[in-house]
């Protein structure tokens, strides 16, 4: 019956890939971490998206608070208010976070961050130490808030049976219109994005063809621009940055400031972005993002501007830094 395909998985291979932690604690490694350490690690690795107090920045997930809000019109679903199992918190931090640098959190750090998040949610005191030993003694506030799919009992009888075919309603009125919200992406002509063109536009013959985007030719032939190959390499390097920084036409501030015009700009001066005090002070003291300063910053962000809030370890390779700066110059002017 068996085909004899595949080979036995080795213990070291299973240990490397099977790191899932289950609600009963199965899969937890040895280790521990306290709230204070977790606070530090969180500030370093998590706070750029989730905020110093796990309050969530922009639309990034809020991790603390929201208790008692699940019946509200706008419920706040956090670890404290919604998550039923502590194992999920540890597992997700250890396996999938930080965003863009997954699987870099050590078991002790995962225990510490989890302890900090328990503290942020008012579940433990500030002297709490979480470990493999006491892990399953924690009961999450919403542990009883879930039940298995009951649609078969609660809905299917209601939604089955003979469907009405005629005179099913006395009067039908339009009660809501999407157009009043005006949140649909649109094409340049103002219609919903992707609206199909008229395949037989005899009556619309006067409508002009949209102008072809010929402008790119000019920018690519401009003299003294960055080396296209270097720019292309930089575009790849920039993927490491793109979760937080936007660049190019229409770029807006996100977790990090938008980077258009970064070369030659004074540090900490993008309008509307809330900088760390360290970065704002550095700009006020005269730091300008020259090619040289950008090189220094990107090779060691924490060392070059101490206590700034960019949670990025830096780029090891000078080639990568050359490339990403060329890309920024090309994409953001």
């Amino acid at each position, binding site marked *: 019956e068996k085909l004899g395909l595949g080979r036995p998985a080795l213990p070291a291979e299973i240990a490397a*890939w*099977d790191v899932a932690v*289950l609600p009963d604690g199965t899969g937890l490694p040895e280790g521990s971490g306290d709230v204070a350490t977790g606070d530090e690690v969180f500030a370093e690795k998590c706070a750029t998206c989730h905020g110093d107090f796990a309050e969530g920045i922009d639309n990034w997930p809020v991790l603390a608070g929201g208790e008692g809000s699940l019946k509200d019109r706008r419920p706040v679903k956090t670890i404290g208010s919604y998550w039923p199992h502590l194992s*999920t918190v540890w597992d997700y931090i250890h396996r999938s976070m930080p965003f863009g640098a997954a699987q870099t959190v050590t078991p002790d750090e995962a225990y510490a961050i989890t302890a900090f998040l328990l503290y942020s949610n008012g579940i433990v005191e500030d002297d709490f130490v979480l470990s493999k030993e006491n892990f399953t003694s924690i009961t999450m506030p919403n542990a009883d*808030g879930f039940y298995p799919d009951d649609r078969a009992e609660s809905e299917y009888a209601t939604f089955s049976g003979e469907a009405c075919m005629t005179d099913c309603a006395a009067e*039908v009125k339009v009660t809501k219109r*999407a157009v009043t919200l005006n949140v649909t992406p649109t094409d340049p002509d103002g219609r*919903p994005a992707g609206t199909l063109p008229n*395949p037989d536009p005899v009556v619309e013959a006067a409508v002009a063809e949209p102008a072809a985007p010929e402008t790119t030719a000019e920018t690519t032939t401009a003299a003294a621009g960055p080396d296209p190959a270097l720019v292309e390499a930089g575009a790849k390097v920039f993927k490491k940055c793109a979760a937080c920084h936007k660049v190019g036409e229409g770029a807006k501030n996100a977790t990090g400031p938008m980077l258009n015009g970064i070369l030659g700009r004074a540090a900490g001066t993008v309008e509307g972005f809330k900088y760390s005090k360290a970065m704002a002070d550095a700009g006020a003291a005269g730091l300008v993002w020259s090619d040289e300063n950008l090189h220094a910053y990107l090779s060691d962000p924490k060392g070059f501007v101490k206590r700034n809030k960019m949670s990025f370890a830096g780029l090891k390779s000078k080639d990568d830094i050359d490339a990403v700066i060329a890309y920024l110059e090309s994409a953001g002017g």
Partner: protein
Amino acid sequence: TPDPLITEVQDWASSFGDPVDATPYGMPIRFESQVVRRNVEWLTESPVSSINFTPIHALEGTITPQGCAFERHHSGAIELSKPDYRLMIDGLVETPLVFTYEDLTRFPRETRTAFCECAANGGMEWGGAQLEGCQFTQGMIHNMEYVGVPLRLLLEEAGVKPEGKWVYAEGADASSNGRSMPLEKAMDDVLVAFYANGEALRKEHGYPVRLVVPGFEGNMWVKWLRRIGVYDQAVESREETSKYTDLMPDGRARKWTWVMDAKSVITSPSPQAPIYHGKGPLVITGLAWSGHGKVTRVDVSLDGGKNWQEAELTGEAQSKALTRFRLNIDWDGSELLLQSRAVDETGYVQPTKDALRAIRGTNSVYHNNGIQTWWVHENGEVENVEVA
């Protein structure tokens, strides 16, 4: 006057077109450039953990081309080659195993067409009509013909122990998205797939190997599949607790709501597919599907649900796959409130949005399979509305 397109010899009727090999792997002709995936930027904070939508308003038939089938990534679409590919089966099995890509190609294969629908399809409409266009309201769906190995054969190769009741599937990308399913489902119709629509999976659909879980929500169709763990309990991962659970009005939440209930939507006319041709013959066309089996009937209403007529189901309805329905009418040029309503082989009739809200409230995010209404105006423009 005579049509010059007929009376005059056109360039294309006189000189050469493209030679063979002009495009060794072809793209659609430039006139179809609007038939592409689109996203809604305000929905998510980062495009690497985001979703886009299939242009279902512009497609016909039932098969979704891979190149415009919606994408959902939690940490970006990764590039994983066949030589670098490994699949591990471990946990409560007699022999934990590692398979290479080639190992998988040596198991007996099956072919199966299935729809993949994100649990959040239609989720933006819980609070009321919100987005203009069926690409945006119902486009988190695609339907492909897959070829792969039944997961059952791989589990039998490893030998599931009697205490193994749950199967957890996990991807190789940085999000390591993982979902648990009962062993019975894993042994039933789940495929470990490597072809879609006759060719290798596209990168964005999990190349080289993804899970196909017919009838179940798209989040469980793990891409870049790297590990199958057998357990005695659900893992209760982030994707099956904090997400993909359905918050109910009493503040409690349903979990393990895997099956996608019956649903349908008229794809044309719709806001992105207005009527240009004026009154007279009009083809109303749409899609219907059910995670419980076959669609057996689709009704269409022209007056917002007062009166219904049965549409034609084209082709043979397949279980847990998209079905196409059409209704040909003679449009008199007056306003229409178009709706469609799917019925599946269990007897389930697609409910109205209000009937769903009466039970679930408006905060459950997922599994909104309520009836969609399109308001067709006299000039042929179409709006997304709700009626009561």
